[in-house]
């Protein structure tokens, strides 16, 4: 691979040329009588940490961070709701920032620090936000819940860091974790079961907000 030294193509497949165009040409020539052809697309190595643990993977570059977590690392706590950035179920923290892991290629995360719901807390050692979600019933079916919790943890930090939101009245004043601020900032996490009011209660408790 040209460019950065830490990037290399692992040519695990059969193609010496290792490019998509060559692969495409081969596909067009192929006969239907050979349905069991194996992968001949380039594979890339990538290393990052997940929940503090270093991970090195060889991946089809099309693999999203989400599918890497769910399928390759079997960390299925992160959910696939839409795979198109429209629901927030796949929210994870990368270097402390929450992102939609469905809209990010794993190979672009070389050296990153990824935190998933499994890294936030476990059934025996719940994070304060997880405990508050249980206490306030901030979920029902549970499918959006890991994303909601990752987002909730990040939202409180964003408010602390002075990142404004759509409902921030004075951009230059200090951000406060009001109910309105939390609701607006959580809006990228859809909950069709409609646990919003309870999630708001859970976050308010963790943030120490009374109103």
């Amino acid at each position, binding site marked *: 691979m040209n460019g950065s030294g830490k990037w290399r193509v692992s040519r695990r497949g059969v193609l010496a040329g290792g490019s998509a165009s060559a692969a495409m040409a081969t596909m067009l020539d192929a006969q239907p009588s050979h349905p069991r052809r194996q992968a001949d697309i380039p594979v890339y190595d990538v290393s990052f940490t997940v929940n503090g643990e270093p991970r090195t993977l060889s991946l089809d570059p099309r693999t999203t961070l989400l599918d890497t977590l769910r*399928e390759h690392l079997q960390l299925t706590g992160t959910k696939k709701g839409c795979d198109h950035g*429209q629901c927030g179920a796949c929210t994870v923290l990368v270097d402390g920032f929450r992102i939609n892991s469905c809209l990010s290629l794993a190979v672009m995360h070389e050296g990153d620090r990824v935190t998933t719901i499994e890294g936030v807390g476990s059934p025996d050692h719940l994070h304060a936000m997880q405990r508050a979600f249980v206490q306030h019933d901030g979920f029902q079916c549970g499918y959006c819940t890991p994303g909601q919790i990752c987002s909730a943890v990040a939202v409180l930090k964003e408010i602390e860091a002075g990142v404004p939101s759509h409902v921030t009245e004075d951009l230059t004043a200090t951000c406060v974790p009001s109910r309105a601020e939390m609701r607006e900032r959580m809006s990228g996490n859809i909950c069709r079961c409609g646990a919003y009011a309870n999630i708001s209660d859970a976050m308010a408790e963790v943030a120490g907000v009374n109103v």
Partner: protein
Amino acid sequence: MEFSAPSPDNAIDQLKIVGKPTTRIDGPLKTTGSAPYAYERHDVAADQAYGFIVGAAIAKGTIKAIDLREARAAAGVIGTVSTLDYSPLALGPMNTANLFGGAKVEHYHQAIAVVVAETFEQARAAAALVRVDYARSEGEYSLDRAAHTAVSVPPEEGERRAVGDFPSAFAQAAVTIDREYTTPGHSHAMMEPHATIAAWEKGRLTVWTSNQMIGWGKRDLCKAFGLKPNQVRIDSPYIGGGFGGKLFVRSDVMVAALAARVVGRPVKLALHRPLIINNTTHRAATRQRIRIGAERSGKIVAIAHDSISGNLPNGKPERSVQQTTLFYGSANVAVDLRMAQVDLPEANAMRAPGEAPGLMALEIAMDEMAEKLGLDPVVFRIMNDTQVDPTKPDRHFSERNFVECLRTGAERFGWSDRPAKPASRREGRWLIGMGMAGGFRNNQLQPSAARVRLRRDGKIIVETDMTDIGTGSYTIIAQTAAETMGVKLTDVVVVLGDSDFPVSAGSGGQFGAVNSTSGVYAACIKLQSLILERLGFDSADATFVNGKIQVGSRSVTLKEAVQSGELLAEDGIVYAKGYEERAQQSTFAGHFVEVAVDSFTGETHIRRMLAVCDAGRILNPITARSQVIGAMTMGAGAALMEELVVDTRFGFFVNHDLAGYEVPVHADIPHQEVIFLNKVDPWSTPMKAKGVGELGICGVAAAVANAVYNATGVRIRDYPITLDKYLANLPRPD
């Protein structure tokens, strides 16, 4: 256990655990991502391959050819399945649209092929290489165009569509309204896509899938694949939302099973999000007409409700009129349910089918009628309460506290502060309004069975094919078993969603909680008798308390009772034939909403919501409240934003993803208050509870609509109530 008469006092009435606010026992798993959903079962069926479904690109027609050569040759591809290789798979009784097989395309995004590969990325890329040659047919995609062709659907057994003489009574009524209302199609839009892992082993099919009704699913899979019941297993321990969209097996199960057979390996696949809306089912759009006639005093003397919906041939209508024969007292009632053929995807059940869209219309009509009569809408509804089934006046409601819902709600909400005149209250640029509506949904009795084991460590293991779709089944079942067996909640282990377990009511029609817990109660009572039998105790005097069986001065722990081996009891609740006819079992609500409408832009914000619910005993106030606030949220969506937009030329729902089909987000939903009257209803079951999960949505949208009217003075009868519909008539600030 057969239930044939109102329940006497029983173990549940102790209410040591049942009825207490109890956080979910599955909470620690769900909040940590440890609860496994269908697509996530890396622990089962080794060597899973990935499938990706191809959906039809046309709405109606025939597939002339499918060219799979490129797809088969693509990297990583293991196999393909084409609809042309199969005749249509036999459908279960609840399905309408073909799920897979054959050349006929009945709706857009119908599953027509699946590509299986080593990885998801390979399967998805190869699926895009499938070339399909279609012959399009003419179709009808507009309900408005088709409405005049709609024909009346015959009443179901026992259903009465008319009483008295509506036409005369309406003609003679002092005050009348005659209005038309439209509701659009709605999508369940549950967060977890339909997903399945299918594996065959020695002719036996196992599917790990996401399904609300395991018993139905097993029945339908047997039929589709010609298998015997012992050759099919469904496992669905966690379901990422259903709302009716996962009541019946869908194409994901069918094609995963076929693909797994073809490639000789377990196959896992999910419906990708942009496919779900057109591939699966939806709540039908309706066109409704409501006529109400009343005396000047406000007493309703005539009410008629007509509804038209569309569906594929042999589909079912949206039963929007079904509450109208029961909700308000009137001597003259007439309802008509009509259906037109439209070639859109299959319309089928979504949360509170019938009542949800029916009350969206009826409860605006009631608001309009109250206004015309010069009555407060709460007062008007109270005046027209009935304690008997208006179509069979000698048949009473088992428990009906609708008036108390309204009175309690009005007081708690501060209804007396409602602006009497629409568009009369301003706060700066905001117009403020309050609205209310009644909620109504029947309580349905369904047989439900369970197996309960007393393990040698003293733990109670409950096994039933009941599902928890977010409803809280795990928790209320554990509460029921703990209460009945006299043990702590933590001494109960609940295992759900496996078709190898006894068949439960399943999750649908708000019948899950009350029936499944009753089935568990029945099994526990049987387990009690087995324990007593083993101990040689006289059952009449025995009590199960604090982990012990006590008879007189004798006391044995449960653990001691099974020293010689565990005990297992299986039983269920069944209802005596005709029992349901003796009394009408329904649930009731009063919904109250306050909105603020931007007088410049027409943007609507819901400020407050309150629901007062009468649904029998509340088994767990925490999970029941969550069901209700969730339903209120869905109702808010129906009121303000949710609409399946139809392209009436090409015949598909255009906004077929979660960006296009907008559902409420956090910022849309304010604090929500729920009050349960908690009136015990011994008629329902030994649990004396009734359904509540669908009641919560019934009437909500109309309460929002009525609040928007109160705020703006503009009456919109066409959902969703988006600003484009009233902007031109919206009063501006001076």
